[in-house]
Structure formats: structure tokens, C-alpha cells
């Protein structure tokens, strides 16, 4: 790249061509999208979350557009870990792009199962534990909404694999720093912030929820400010831990916001749906920005946000 700039990024040991990754559930494993996107210019692909058994998912409608965002309620539809390996194994082994496998489960045990199986799969670069799903052993409370449960999952998964493990957290908690700390104590090699924000929309003509699953996850630019805040809070508390910033990233500037807030890399989700080329453009844009600022690596931006008046947080939500 121009001006001695390199976008190469080392994420907890994973070598990436760029710090811009595809977010889970928005890019498959890369196979389908390879026809539209040059995968060599993609940092890595985080797969759709995989569970031990096949999951059929929720009834339609599974999405609804909201202002500057969308709600989705897929219900983790996936072919199960065996079906996943059959479908995606060869592609992943091919090594065209680093693949981080997102794993999910209804119990600590299920996470462990998938982690073990996935770790044996050639070519897998890392594991992202999607702990933003309901825990059947705790009245369906979401793992990531409970620091202890989150720590249990991560502790078990890290013991089960040699691969770097990223804990993917939700912003729908009173204190995300507490959950983050618990995951790091349990051995997480990095944190992925954030998953979608729980929301709902209602059809005023039919009086029905616009989603078959009633509630769903809000994504897109609408949640960007929330995600930047979460990355900022966690990075302040855990400056050593690699963070992947996620939430409403659509262009280089929004990606750079996350790096300045403390992220080492970013994931692009919803934008892939309408702008499949955006990850490549964002990486190029970051490169151009670095050149313009006379910097040589994205890491020079990490956590560089200047905050004189701290701690102003927790701020006056109420105006």
C-alpha cells in the first residue's frame, strides 16, 4: 500500500490482511459472496453461528427494516456442526480467507461440543463464541447478560480448543465492562463488541409483531453510537485485550471511530447485504486515512481518542 502503510493486523495471533472482518451471519462462510467480493481483500470471515444439532430457525417474517437499521429474528438457523463441516469444510481448508467459526449453544456443554468439533477442522483460524443466546439452564437468560454464565462458557471453550477464542457480547446489559472482565478472566483471547440490540416492531394494520419471533436484533447504523460507547468503556477497563468493534460500520470513518475508541479490528455486518464491496472499500479507506495522517499501521489509531474531561461517564442520559 502507498506510503509504506500496511493494513496487516495481528488479532490474538491470527494474521489478517486487513482489520476489516465480515460479521457473523451476514456473509455466510464466504463461499456465496466470493462471486461478488475479492476475498483476498477481506481480513477474515466470521461464519454464521453453528450449533451441535441442526436448527430450523424461526418462522417468517424474519426481518424488518427500521430507520437506519433492521431487525432480524432468524433463530440461529444452521445445519448443525456436522452439516456445517460437510458444507463449508473444504472451502475453509482451501484457505482463501481466514475463517473464524462462530459457535453457539443452549448450554455450556453445547458450546463445548461445537468447540471441540470445530477445532479439528483444518484451516479454522479462530472461534467466536456467540454467547448472546438463551441459556436453557437459566430460564433462557442470555449467557452474555450474566457475567458468571458468560465466564463459564468462555472458560470451558478455551479449555477445549487450541484456537484463539473471542467472546461476543451484547450491549443489553447494565454493565458491559463486568461481563467483559469475566470473559477475559475466563481466558478469552479477545472480545467482539457488539451483537445486535434487542428490539421490536409492530404492524399497525395487523396488530402483529413484524417478526415471526416477536422480538429481534437491531443492527445497522442506528446502533453505531451504542457500539462505539461499549468499545470505549471496555477498552478503558481492559486496555490490553484485543477488541473487535461491531455495529453499524458502513465506511472508513465509522470503522476508524471504533479503532480510536479502542478496537484492534472491526466487523461489518448489515452493510454487506446492500453494499457487498464495503469491506474492501473500508479497508482501502483506512489505508488512505493512514497515508494522509502519516501513519503506517491501523494499530496506531487504536484507543487514540482524546478524552480530557473523563470520567464524565456514566453520563446524563436524561439530557
Amino acid at each position: 500500500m502507498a506510503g509504506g502503510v500496511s493494513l496487516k493486523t495481528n488479532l490474538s495471533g491470527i494474521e489478517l490482511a486487513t482489520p476489516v472482518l465480515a460479521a457473523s451471519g451476514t456473509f455466510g462462510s464466504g463461499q456465496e459472496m466470493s462471486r461478488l467480493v475479492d476475498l483476498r481483500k477481506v481480513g477474515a470471515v466470521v461464519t454464521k453461528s453453528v450449533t451441535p444439532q441442526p436448527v430450523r430457525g424461526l418462522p417468517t417474517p424474519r426481518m424488518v427494516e427500521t430507520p437506519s437499521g433492521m431487525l432480524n429474528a432468524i433463530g440461529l438457523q444452521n445445519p448443525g456442526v456436522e452439516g456445517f463441516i460437510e458444507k463449508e469444510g473444504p472451502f475453509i481448508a482451501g484457505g482463501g480467507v481466514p475463517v473464524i467459526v462462530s459457535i453457539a449453544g443452549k448450554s455450556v456443554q453445547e458450546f463445548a461440543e461445537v468447540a471441540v468439533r470445530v477445532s479439528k477442522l483444518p484451516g479454522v483460524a479462530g472461534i467466536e463464541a456467540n454467547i448472546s443466546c438463551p441459556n436453557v439452564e437459566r430460564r433462557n437468560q442470555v449467557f452474555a447478560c450474566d457475567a458468571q454464565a458468560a465466564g463459564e462458557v468462555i472458560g470451558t471453550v478455551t479449555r477445549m480448543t487450541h484456537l484463539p477464542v473471542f467472546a461476543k457480547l451484547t450491549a443489553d446489559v447494565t454493565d458491559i465492562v463486568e461481563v467483559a472482565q469475566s470473559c477475559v478472566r475466563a481466558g478469552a483471547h479477545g472480545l467482539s463488541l457488539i451483537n445486535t440490540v434487542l428490539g421490536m416492531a409492530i404492524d399497525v394494520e395487523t396488530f402483529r409483531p413484524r417478526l415471526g419471533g416477536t422480538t429481534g436484533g437491531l443492527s445497522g447504523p442506528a446502533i453505531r453510537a451504542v457500539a462505539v460507547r461499549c468499545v470505549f468503556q471496555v477498552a478503558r477497563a481492559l486496555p490490553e485485550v484485543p477488541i473487535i468493534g461491531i455495529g453499524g460500520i458502513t465506511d472508513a470513518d465509522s470503522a476508524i471511530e471504533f479503532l480510536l475508541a479502542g478496537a484492534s479490528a472491526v466487523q461489518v455486518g448489515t452493510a454487506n447485504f446492500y453494499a457487498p464491496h464495503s469491506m474492501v472499500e473500508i479497508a482501502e479507506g483506512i489505508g488512505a486515512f493512514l497515508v494522509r495522517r502519516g501513519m503506517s499501521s491501523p494499530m496506531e489509531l487504536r484507543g487514540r481518542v482524546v478524552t480530557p474531561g473523563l470520567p464524565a461517564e456514566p453520563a446524563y442520559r436524561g439530557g
Partner: protein
Amino acid sequence: MFRQKCEVLSVKRLGAYHSITLVAPEIADDARPGQFVEVAVPPEREFLLRRPFSIHQASRKGGWAGTLEIAFVPVGPGTRWLTDIEAHDFLDVVGPLGRPFPYPTQPNSCLLVGGGYGAAPLYFLAQELRSRGKRVDMIIGARDQERVFKAVEAKRLSVQVTITTEDGSLGERGKVTDALPGMVTRCDTEVVYACGPNPMLRAVAEYCAEQRLPTQVAVEELMACGVGVCWTCVVPVIRRDGSGWDYLRSCIDGPVFSGSRVWWEKWLGGRSAPIQTPPQGFQAEELTVGRAASWPAG
């Protein structure tokens, strides 16, 4: 599948419809009837996602070579925005997408049933069928005359045509399904193709199942990506081996499915009459359209 910035060649009004003809050589070249394209909306809008539109026409040869036509009625922000598009503007288009209508191998008498904008892909299909020596008949319906899409074109392309409108402002008063039995008999229909509102597809599919007529229907579900990665666009489809059913992605396993394998009751609710499609262990005796069954999953 390609992503192209396509220049708008021309825009037309036909009754309630707007049509846009695009210069899109690669897409047009691959396009087959029943496939669709995803059109990007402009930046700085509060709505983000591409809008899917069936390919109404794709010209590979002749004066219109390399062009693609879509037709739509303004129903919301995306389609309203599209009505302001003018010749020489550029649209960001991804396509061709999805599983097209399969063609029958043995000689066949084909009845094409279109409701509302669902008629758009059927003329393209009719041409392809005729060029393969098939007999084509058509039923084109809509709420009213304004919304009947290209009645004249239907007459030009088919042996027999029935037009239906719910308000009787054109052709027979009623729904396309009212005209279905009569046409099937008159035309010795051997296979039915349908595109239109999902409840219409369901009625057509259920009637054809009763009559043991193969059907291919182009369904419509909300789509976020259009390319198979988001899993929002699924439809419950019975496995060919009857071992159960799956949510298949209508953007790549469809939008065209065999009407007898869509589990309508599960998808659209209510009770399926006359035939029920139970979920498990049900032998989905597929009514094949020649090699249709050999098409990709679904």
C-alpha cells in the same frame, strides 16, 4: 451473479406500473425467466436495503441487446424513489439472482398465471417456452384495469388468454383462480407456472395438486441480502424424500419452487384445503415438470 452500475436506457409508465430498462450486458446475458435483481437505494436514506425486482425482460440479441427491464408499482420509499429515476441515471444492480422457472423436457401445454406485478416475469418465460415449441396460454389478473400488466402482450404471446380483475373493470370479474379450472380444461394444460401474491400462489398450487398438475411458483419473502447469506427469506419446503421439511432460502433455492412442495399452511397460516401437508414423514410426491426435479434443491 454480477454487481453492475447500470445506466438507465429508458423509463415507461404502463397503467399503475413504472418500468425501467437498464444497460446491463453481463446480467442480461445470464438472466433466465423467474430470476430477479437487487437494486440498491441511494445513501443518506433511513432505509438501507436493496429492493428485489423480477426480471421482466432480458434481451441478449437484437436492438435491445444487453438490456434488462424491471416493472413495479410504487408501494413504499424504495419504489417511490425509483419512480424519480430518469434515463441516463445509474442504478447499482446485483443479479441475476435465484432459481429460474424450469422448462419442461417433453412437449407440454403450459398455462402461465400472473397476478399483479407477478405477471412481469411471465412474458419473458412465455417467449422462452414458445422458442422451445411449447404451447403457451395465460391468465393475467389484478385488482383493477390499471393494475393488469400488459394485457396486449399476453394476447400476443399465448394461444388462449383470460384477463381477470376483482372490480370487473377489465376482462372477467373475479380472481385468476376463478378462471383457472376453465382454462385448464380448454387448453389441455399439462403444467402450470404462477407468479403473484403468495395467497394466489397457494390457491393455484392447491388446485393443481388436486388436479395432479405440476406447478412451478415464484414466491415472495422479505429479503435482506438476496444472495443467500442472511437467511431472512426462507420458505418451508417439504423434502423430496419426504423425510421432513426445511426452511429454504427463496433467494437462492427459490424464488421458484415446485408448488406441491411448499408447505403453505406452515408458511401462510390458516388451514390448507383441500390437501394438508403434514410436517414429518410425509411423502412429497412431487409432480415433476420434466427435468424440473433435477434442478438445484427445492
